[in-house]
């Protein structure tokens, strides 16, 4: 059952508590300082919509090239370090993981580089011919 509460327009609470300052910087800095691989963000006291918060954190991470992935799971906001493995050890070259065009994973990044010769073109063209998408 969907429940509503009757309210008179004049009783709508239009008061604002005011700007509470920037949220992305302190949250992300605090997360980095924990030195943990993954953490769930406790939203208590933040007074921020989780969807909004995820969006602004994502933008901040991108614009500052931070080694953090922000994601939702079971409705909770999670932060994950990309420069640490599951044991908390630093991952060399973690930036390489971000080199693939958005949406791709770059699974063949560690293949041996090959020169572009006739055989290579034939092999790759055979794979691409008749395809329509990347």
């Amino acid at each position: 059952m969907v429940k509503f509460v009757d309210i008179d327009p004049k009783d709508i609470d239009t008061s604002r508590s005011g700007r509470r300052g920037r949220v992305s910087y302190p949250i992300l800095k605090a997360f980095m300082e924990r030195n943990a691989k993954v953490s769930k963000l406790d939203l208590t006291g933040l007074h921020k919509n989780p969807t909004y918060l995820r969006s602004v954190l994502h933008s901040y991470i991108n614009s500052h090239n931070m080694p953090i992935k922000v994601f939702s799971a079971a409705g909770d906001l999670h932060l994950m370090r990309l420069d640490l493995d599951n044991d908390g050890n630093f991952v060399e070259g973690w930036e390489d993981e971000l080199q693939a065009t958005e949406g791709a994973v770059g699974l063949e990044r560690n293949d041996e580089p090959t020169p572009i010769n006739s055989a290579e073109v034939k092999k790759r063209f055979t794979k691409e011919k008749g395809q329509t998408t990347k």
Partner: protein
Amino acid sequence: MNQVQKPLLVICAKRYNGHELWTLLGVLQERDYEFEVVSQALLIRDELTLKPNTIERTVYDVSPDEIREEKFAAVCVVSGNMSDTEAYWTDPHVLNLLQAAREINLVVAAICCSVPTLAPVCKDVAVSYFPLMRSRYRLRDFGAVLRNTSLTVDGHTVTAENQMITQMWAEEICNLLEGKPQQYQMEDSGFTPKGSERKMDPLVRAAIDADRGYGMVLQKGPNKGKIYDPKAS
């Protein structure tokens, strides 16, 4: 080698669109052309898989004089990762190569988001391009004739809108080099994707437009496509 007897210069983004690059090279190879692939770096990668390939020269190792001396039959630009692709749009060296190609009427070709790279050498030339707003503005500002069709051959210029047209684009490049008539004729369907500018504070927008000396308002309604005059408002 083909009767043209010269290789084609293929300029690709260092993180290239695999379908575009390998389909172009495959068609060229099937039609017995040779080619040289150059890019921003000697190690290039498929933008999705990051599979690496090596090339012998970067685009910066190619001199405009090589173009003028007719060492290449054509210059083709292939796109890929947007930041790498757009880096070519305003790259002065690449522009020099394209201008050298134009001076001697070489075939120049580009596809998808690399078409705006050709903008400075496409005044009054009909082009197909991937319809990003910034591509449209750049091509329009340089005087290119914007076409809605997916593939356009105009004089010595072959352009295609998106990667799905790659094979046809590559075949038309070969046809042009061989003096054959255009193989694929496309009718303008009249369909244009709706475009809108990123929303920006009107005061900021007005300041930018005033500084540029022109402005464009793209919105639904009577003002669609009209030039915005900041002094009038």
